[in-house]
């Protein structure tokens, strides 16, 4: 039964109208921002631990806005922001005793909650977790469980909550939704979640085998004629179409992958002739390289966190 007593706003929010003249400038070049980084160049990001004093461990991760986004914010030409930049806050509560109703467990039980803020994506998210959020939670749990030494905390639980304040776009917002149809932004969100959660777990002083970090690689084709090429740390808003993408959670010290999520058709990748790898192998290797890059920042953030806890003693 609809609420007829009040004048309510539309449930899904509204978007400003987009005029054809805005989408194509006079020169005939669309306003889509193209990738200015090298294929192997990663975006910068900011990672800080211990932002939330009530949690036993916490971290905040923010990707640097792309050059195009920064330019559009200072000098707006269109009503559509060209892209968005990931912002994730992570809290870790525990290890704490399990409630009495839970049967004995010899290991630390991990619970992961990934929640988008209602305003995080272009389309409003409800307050109840939807399927993509639950799905991300399972991926994250798989990634972290491999890194945590769980048997050192029998009968205890660990709650990891991630709040996505701003999510990555799945496509350039001027595109029709079908042209780029898959939730490619989710892969970036997952990689960010893994890195942030790893920093928060280290901030909570929970024993891990290694710091696990997330990385994304994708096969993109910017025009239909060329074969898709491999880029690391892809921003979906910068490409016309993404053929295939892969996210890994990677532990550099052991050279091991705890989580792998690859989707899309990777068979038509343009690799060098001498490269004997198939498309999916190249994707996984690329994602691992991206994860290695993220790991350097993660290590610095954790070092900062430890220095701070020593200073408090």
């Amino acid at each position, binding site marked *: 039964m609809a609420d007829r007593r009040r004048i309510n706003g539309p449930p899904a929010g509204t978007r400003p109208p987009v005029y054809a003249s805005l989408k194509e400038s006079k020169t005939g070049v669309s306003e889509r921002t193209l990738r200015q980084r090298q294929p192997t160049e990663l975006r910068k990001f900011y990672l800080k631990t211990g932002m939330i004093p009530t949690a036993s461990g916490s971290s905040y991760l923010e990707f640097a806005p792309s050059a195009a986004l920064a330019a559009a914010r200072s000098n707006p030409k269109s009503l559509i922001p060209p892209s968005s930049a990931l912002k994730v806050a992570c809290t870790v509560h525990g290890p704490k005793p399990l409630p009495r109703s839970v049967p004995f467990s010899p290991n630390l039980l991990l619970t992961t909650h990934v929640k988008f803020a209602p305003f995080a994506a272009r389309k409003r998210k409800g307050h109840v977790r939807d399927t993509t959020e639950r799905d991300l939670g399972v991926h994250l749990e798989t990634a972290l469980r491999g890194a945590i030494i769980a048997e050192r905390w029998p009968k205890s639980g660990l709650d990891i909550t991630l709040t996505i304040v701003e999510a990555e776009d799945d496509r350039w917002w001027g595109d029709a939704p079908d042209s780029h149809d898959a939730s490619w932004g989710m892969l970036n969100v997952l990689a960010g979640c893994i890195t942030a959660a790893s920093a928060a777990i280290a901030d909570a002083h929970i024993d891990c085998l290694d710091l696990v970090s997330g990385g994304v690689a994708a096969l993109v084709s910017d025009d239909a004629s060329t074969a898709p090429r491999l880029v690391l740390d892809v921003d979906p808003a910068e490409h016309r179409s993404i053929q295939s993408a892969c996210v890994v959670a990677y532990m550099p010290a052991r*050279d091991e992958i705890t989580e792998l999520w690859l*989707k899309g058709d990777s068979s038509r990748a343009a690799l060098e002739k001498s490269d004997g790898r198939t498309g999916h192998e190249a994707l996984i290797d690329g994602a691992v390289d991206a994860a290695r890059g993220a790991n350097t920042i993660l290590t610095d953030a954790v070092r900062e966190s430890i220095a701070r806890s020593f200073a408090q003693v």
Partner: protein
Amino acid sequence: MSNQRQASSASQVPHLSPAELSYLYTSLSLPKNPIRPDGRSPTQFRPLSAETNILPGTNGSARIGFADGTQAIVGVKASVEKTILAADTLDSRSLAQHGDALNREGEEGSAAVSGQGEWVQMSIEIPGYRDDDALPVFLGEMMRESLVGSVAGGSEEVKEMAGGLKGRLVINKRWHWRLYIDVLLLSQPLAYPLPLLSLTTHLALLSTKLPKLKSTGEEDPFFDDDWAVAEYLYPRSNKQSSPSDAPTYPVRPPVTLLVIAVGENVIFDPNREEIAVADAVLAISITRSSDSENMKLLSIRSIDPPSRLTQPGIPNSENVNMLGGPPASSNQSGGQEEVGGVWRPRRGGVQRSVITRMIKTVLQKGGVGEEVIQGLEGVKVE
């Protein structure tokens, strides 16, 4: 409650003692020829019985039962829906001509419209789980992702399937089919139910028929009443040599295989006991690519191996009962070194080389993927 907490792991915490786990692991990780508890070869699947078109009220349905008693039913229903085209989703070309677009509607073929992944909805019901628990959601997303992601290559033969399943659902610019795939697991999930559900969905989609369209172009859709002339969702090629032959499909829905690695060995279709000792579990979705005979990879997801949640065994050197006094090292988690025959829960991830080997076993020519697809081609779908 405890089930639900653990629901996301490959299934529940295995109820096996450390000694049993260690025995299983040792026999499964024997180099070159693992010994499986049920005597299968590493790439052999469990025997199954399958039937299709069992539910008269659906567009397509299938049932598959494994010999161990697990059964799944899949029903596919389709409904016609209006395509919502907000102003910002029109491309600028059509916006520029908006003034006269209304009366020239239908000049461009509907091929210009490609489908959307949201048009395929999947719900999975597993006894003992709520529908918003992690396991059904994860399984559903996994199967849906490969279904809507499989786009056929540029073969001319199957015009309808040009945009994959999504493209097939487009009726014209303003209308499309919405597909509801409802998966029902009838028995308790004895093993990780992914292979069963994926195979059943595959057969149900092959048997799915959509009513024949009578209207043309951009008219409102109008269908033939005669169910006998309905068209298959996945078109069949009509060059059959004899009527007794199974029809061939230029495009087939994807299949998701469950693959585990134990030690050096790669094992397919694990049962509950085998998955409990796995070092790594991968779900690999494949399909036969339409332009070549090779297998095509659609998606890979790693699944949390339940071996991480098992209880460790205690070696005799640390066992109080064997020594008659308190153990020498009171720090029980300190004894990390592997003792032969004593179970240690798996820790850490999986090497890249292992993942590559698992994928290769599926994709290579004459590999398991080809075998599974051939096996499914043997199933006659009415």
